[in-house]
């Protein structure tokens, strides 16, 4: 088994990460730093630092220490030229003055034209990998989960908490970013205890362990966002236990970023979990007793531990060749560690030769997740609560946290900010963005005193580690420089999700989860070769391939369109007439059963929000249709008004339960007569009436309307009969060469009649006055939604009016959205435009300034003359639709 690494094969072993496999193979420099191209090697081996970002199979910025090595992977390093090992760009490191802190704010301001060029160079030189933009995005699933208790972290504390919460009868989910609990912990008591707890938890049916799952944010709800390889989880627990552990503090001293300087846990992980010697001769700086164990692990792996430098109280007896109480003050070396300067407690310094400096600093909590849990039912356990605690203490705190979570947790309150621990005076504060202590101090001298300002100005804490390594150090430097105002300058900076890197495809998880509504005829349409388009939540039919033949069938013979997406409401109840009188601006009370009326719907500002028809049924009920995209909104809108007025009305949404088709064209009646025995002639069933008729054995509400301008019957009937009805109509229409038609043909048919489409031709300022639909408004009614606003609007002339226009034959239809000019000045815009086949010239609708919006006036659209028309170009008297 092997991986391809920059043109050569690197063997891999079971359990390897890319980092361990490459290190075993001799790779020491894993990356070049962000700005100065300094060589950087493995450091934390726990996904916290930016040093091991590589490109894997075209995917950039993969953390080599967190990525399982798999046979056949292609891996390369980033951000260097010609190679990471011999990076010519390292020359920048010799000239820090060229890229001072706050560089973007200082350099390249003058001359102005030079900045885009300079920026291009900087963008190429600085930064991380280059993403492969040819990559097709994957669809990542977004999944909701609802455990009772969520435990973040499957270490000793987390697993103890899970067992205790499950004991308390709760359904528990445990997530951990490692591939398995304890996967990356070196052999030893901690590992043994995790293995034992994990085995017990695996037997417990109330516990689900999800390894390979990284929590990246905690939100109100609470809701925890977690990343898996192919999924993004939205976890909605009732209580959260955060046992995300701690990490060794990032110690700052000259040379602290050299390859060969490791966090002690990282070095031990490489040696103990992967069997890879991190170096030949080590200096271990043990500020904790835990770090002494790491020194033992290194020894066991065959590393010569030349010196263990201990903090007071740490016992390193018998570990390493000698022990010195004191501290490490510098790492020596040019491209890698060659020695460590050790200062003994007495003050004497000496250089100890080594190629590995393992820094076992004091443990700090991983505060990222806890700081996001403010005011949520959450409790901390293990190192997250008591950093550096012994195993039994961690287990006990986990058990207590689990018991508390099972019983219901109080809301978590962030502890008050403590004074930051002192940090070194030279070295790299931020290894993500390449910022040294001197640069931070310089920024403070420039006036950016507080940590929040320093963060923005220097970008410390804003790199891939998101402040894991450097947030406290930044506060410490601010504190040191302005000690008198510690509370102001050294307050913790705000932490925000994501606390782990998130890929764009993960951020977009679920973005393409749409509820796509289909009418019962959808499959039929697709079988006939239909193309579709979105209309609100619906997929509607755009065309069956030949719009002109669909159009001509309606104008000259007969066509049929699926209008099942229309919003359909049955309204009934004692106050139904009063209710309809108030939601529609036209009159409803005088509608006799069997009659219908076109109705606008207005919001309180008098703006048109929808249109449709109102049919008065026998027995006092009403059947109302609204537009396809309006149905959802208008149902809640009607119910809201019903409650506001306290009226006794039932609103039944029949949008999905009823199918609807519109049979239109000169032969529509001939066709239907073949399918019904009920009288549908002009006298029995005239225009703007509706009747219940039986078509093809199915009882339908038939409505005579004229949207497309021809004789037409709109049939509404139970959705279960849709397919057989559709087939029967197409069969019966064969003798007139019937065509199903889509929205494209319908839009031209209605445009020739000058009928508007709400939201295509209207906008959020459109009152009925502006579209010359005064006839649809009865201001003498006592009350309707929008009445007061319409009266106010009547007091002044609208700025612009919607008017139909036509061009001369031979002209091409201008694109919709074209500007309208008059005498060279802007005077409006086109909302609808199409070439009329029957008229032989382009027709459309446009907004035109009121003083020019007169019939017969001339406007200019895209340089071509057009004439403003009356209300309809086709059949202006409406003879055909009344046939």
């Amino acid at each position, binding site marked *: 088994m092997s991986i391809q690494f920059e043109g050569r094969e690197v063997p891999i072993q079971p359990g390897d990460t890319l980092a361990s496999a490459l290190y075993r193979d001799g790779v020491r420099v894993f990356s070049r730093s962000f700005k100065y191209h300094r060589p950087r090697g493995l450091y934390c081996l726990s996904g916290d630092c930016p040093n091991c970002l590589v490109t894997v199979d075209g995917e950039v910025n993969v953390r080599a220490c967190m990525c399982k090595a798999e046979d056949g992977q292609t891996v390369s390093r980033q951000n260097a030229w010609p190679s990471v090992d011999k990076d010519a760009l390292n020359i920048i490191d010799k000239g820090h003055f060229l890229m001072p802190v706050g560089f973007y704010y200082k350099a390249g301001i003058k001359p102005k034209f030079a900045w885009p060029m300079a920026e291009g160079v900087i963008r190429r030189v600085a930064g991380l990998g280059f993403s492969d933009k040819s990559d097709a995005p994957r669809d990542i699933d977004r999944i909701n989960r609802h455990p009772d208790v969520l435990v973040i972290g499957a270490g000793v504390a987390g697993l103890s908490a899970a067992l205790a919460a499950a004991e308390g009868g709760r359904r528990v989910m445990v997530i951990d970013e490692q591939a398995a609990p304890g996967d990356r912990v070196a052999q030893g008591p901690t590992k043994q205890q995790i293995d034992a707890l994990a085995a017990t938890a695996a037997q417990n049916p109330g516990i689900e362990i999800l390894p390979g799952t990284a929590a990246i944010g905690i939100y109100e*709800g609470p809701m925890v966002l977690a990343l898996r390889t192919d999924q993004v989880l939205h976890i909605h627990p009732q209580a959260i236990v955060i046992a995300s552990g701690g990490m060794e503090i990032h110690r700052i001293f000259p040379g602290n970023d050299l390859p060969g300087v490791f966090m002690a846990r990282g070095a031990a992980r490489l040696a103990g979990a992967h069997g890879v010697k991190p170096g030949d001769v080590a200096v271990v700086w043990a500020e904790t007793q835990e770090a002494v164990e790491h020194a033992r692990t290194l020894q066991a792996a065959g590393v010569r531990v030349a010196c263990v430098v201990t903090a007071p109280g740490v016992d390193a007896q018998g570990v390493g060749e000698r022990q010195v109480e004191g501290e490490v003050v510098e790492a020596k070396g040019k491209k890698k560690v060659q020695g460590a300067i050790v200062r003994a407690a007495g003050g004497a310094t000496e250089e100890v030769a080594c190629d590995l400096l393992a820094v076992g600093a004091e443990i700090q909590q991983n505060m990222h997740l806890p700081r996001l849990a403010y005011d949520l039912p959450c409790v901390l356990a293990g190192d997250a609560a008591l950093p550096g605690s012994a195993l039994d203490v961690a287990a006990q705190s986990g058990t207590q946290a689990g018991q508390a979570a099972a019983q219901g947790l109080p809301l978590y309150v962030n502890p008050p900010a403590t004074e930051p621990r002192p940090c070194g005076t030279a070295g790299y504060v931020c290894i993500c963005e390449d910022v040294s202590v001197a640069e931070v101090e310089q920024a403070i001298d420039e006036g950016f005193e507080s940590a929040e300002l320093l963060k923005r100005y220097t970008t410390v804490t804003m790199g891939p580690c998101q402040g894991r390594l450097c947030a406290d150090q930044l506060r410490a430097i601010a504190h040191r420089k302005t000690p008198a105002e510690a509370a102001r300058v050294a307050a913790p900076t705000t932490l925000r999700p994501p606390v782990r890197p998130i890929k764009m495809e993960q951020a977009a998880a679920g973005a393409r989860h749409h509820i796509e509504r289909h009418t019962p005829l959808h499959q039929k349409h697709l079988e006939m070769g239909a193309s579709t388009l979105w209309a609100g939540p619906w997929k509607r039919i755009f065309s069956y391939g030949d719009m002109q033949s669909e159009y001509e069938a309606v104008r000259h013979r007969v066509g049929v369109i699926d209008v099942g997406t229309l919003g359909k409401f049955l309204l009934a109840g004692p106050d139904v007439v009063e209710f309809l009188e108030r939601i529609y601006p036209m009159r409803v009370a005088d509608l006799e059963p069997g009659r219908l009326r076109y109705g606008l719907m207005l919001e309180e500002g008098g703006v048109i929000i929808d249109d449709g028809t109102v049919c008065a049924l026998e027995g006092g009920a009403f059947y109302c249709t609204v537009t396809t995209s309006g149905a959802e909104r208008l149902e*809640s809108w009607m119910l809201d008004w019903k409650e506001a007025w306290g009226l006794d009305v039932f609103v039944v949404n029949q949008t999905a339960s009823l199918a609807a088709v519109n049979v239109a064209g000169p032969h529509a009646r001939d066709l239907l007569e073949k399918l019904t025995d009920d009288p549908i002639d002009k006298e029995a069933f005239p225009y703007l009436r509706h009747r219940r008729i039986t078509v093809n054995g199915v009882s339908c509400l038939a409505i005579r309307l004229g949207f497309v301008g021809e004789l037409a019957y709109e049939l509404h009937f139970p959705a279960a009969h849709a397919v057989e009805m559709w087939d029967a109509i197409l069969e019966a229409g064969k003798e007139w060469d019937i065509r199903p038609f889509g929205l494209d043909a319908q839009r031209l048919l209605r445009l020739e009649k000058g009928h508007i489409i709400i939201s295509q031709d209207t906008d959020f300022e459109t009152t009925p006055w502006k579209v010359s639909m005064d006839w649809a408004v009865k201001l003498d009614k006592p009350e309707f939604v929008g009445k007061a606003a319409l009266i106010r609007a009547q007091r002044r002339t609208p700025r612009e009016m919607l008017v139909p226009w036509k061009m001369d034959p031979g002209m091409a239809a201008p694109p919709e959205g074209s500007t309208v000019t008059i005498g060279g000045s802007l005077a409006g815009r086109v909302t609808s435009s199409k070439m009329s086949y029957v008229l032989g010239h382009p027709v459309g609708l446009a907004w035109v300034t009121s003083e020019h919006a007169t019939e017969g006036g001339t406007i200019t659209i895209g340089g071509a003359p057009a004439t403003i028309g009356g209300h309809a170009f086709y059949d202006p008297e409406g003879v055909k639709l009344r046939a």
Partner: protein
Amino acid sequence: MSHFHIKTPFGYRPVSEFSYGGEVRPPLPADASDEEAIAHLWLRSNVAGVQRERWFHSSGTRRWYTLVRDTRSNIVLAQPGEEYQEGSA
């Protein structure tokens, strides 16, 4: 009960099933001035604190609910049908 669930006749449901209907406002009086009408149409109080508001259960019971919420914490102070008492937070 994790917070921001809304009480319906079918139990407490998570807010993700609802659509926001805005703050409860008194109706515009018939003799309102132009200024009052404009304020009624276009201005909202956008309270940072206790607010009586409407929610439509769009992915559920398809009914409206009126509740009292602290907009700063999303804690529901009075569920639909409950009386809100000042300071009961």
